[in-house]
């Protein structure tokens, strides 16, 4: 490994090596954080293959912008922040086709189970949330991120993230027929 010579270098060491031009160090960072980025986008976008394509584009953009990553910043948060901005620019205008897909899913007998019904209801409610709130829910409620980490990734104030998480949770529970 060319990032500091350590057997398991930290993200920061890898990021510094990537800034110096090491593709291998950057690939290691991608390997470490791809699941977080893709999982986040899959929750936000509904279509897993589209989410993966967006994650790929976001990570290629990350390579070109690696020089702007601050030395003390979390690489995972930075990747997810870039992915979220990419998702916002490509997702707009696709809500209608997502709603059509959902309607089709609801008519399929194989999806008539309690878990599938919950998932469809949550997906529908999630798509109706404001963009920032949806991202906070995907990170904090589904991804177990702390509010501070989500605030760093999305570039939002901590108080806003906390209120988005609480409001988003209440709306999703309501959609599932649970009292918040």
């Amino acid at each position, binding site marked *: 490994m060319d990032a500091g010579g350590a057997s398991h270098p930290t993200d920061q060491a890898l990021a510094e090596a990537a800034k110096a031009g090491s593709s291998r160090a*950057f690939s290691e960072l*991608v390997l470490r954080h*791809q699941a977080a980025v893709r999982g986040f986008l899959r*929750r936000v976008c509904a279509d897993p293959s589209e989410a993966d394509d967006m994650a790929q584009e976001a990570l290629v953009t990350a390579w070109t912008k690696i020089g702007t990553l601050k030395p003390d910043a979390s690489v995972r948060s930075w990747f997810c922040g870039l992915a979220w901005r990419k998702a916002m620019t490509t997702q707009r205008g696709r809500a209608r086709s997502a709603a059509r897909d959902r309607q089709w899913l609801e008519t399929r007998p194989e999806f008539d189970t309690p878990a599938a019904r919950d998932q469809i209801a949550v997906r529908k409610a999630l798509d109706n949330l404001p963009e920032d709130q949806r991202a906070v829910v995907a990170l904090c409620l589904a991804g177990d991120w702390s509010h501070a980490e989500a605030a760093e990734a999305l570039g939002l104030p901590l108080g806003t993230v906390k209120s988005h998480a609480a409001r988003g949770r209440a709306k999703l529970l309501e959609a599932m027929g649970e009292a918040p």
Partner: protein
Amino acid sequence: MTPDDRLKAALGLGAEPPPVDHAFVARVAEGIEARRFRLKLSVLALWAAVAALLCWVLVPVIEQARSNAAASLQPIGLGLVVAVGVWLLRRADVGGALRLARRFVRPGTF
């Protein structure tokens, strides 16, 4: 099952990608190579445009110099032009660009 457990299950159902996915990392690496290639190509195109403009500007001067120069100096001038051309080609890393291009224009693509 608490309401939050139900919510978490509904949010996570089918959303988790594999924790280690070398194929995805390879796709990202390929995307980076493609972007590098496009960048290199645009830089080369810019240099080619600058060189063409320079030639166009210098044609009258070169013509004048050629007609004024003694016949014995012409092989030296030709040698200089070839040397500069080879130097520019080496700097442009045409071989590297062709190798990169071959990666993206695979057999059967066209």
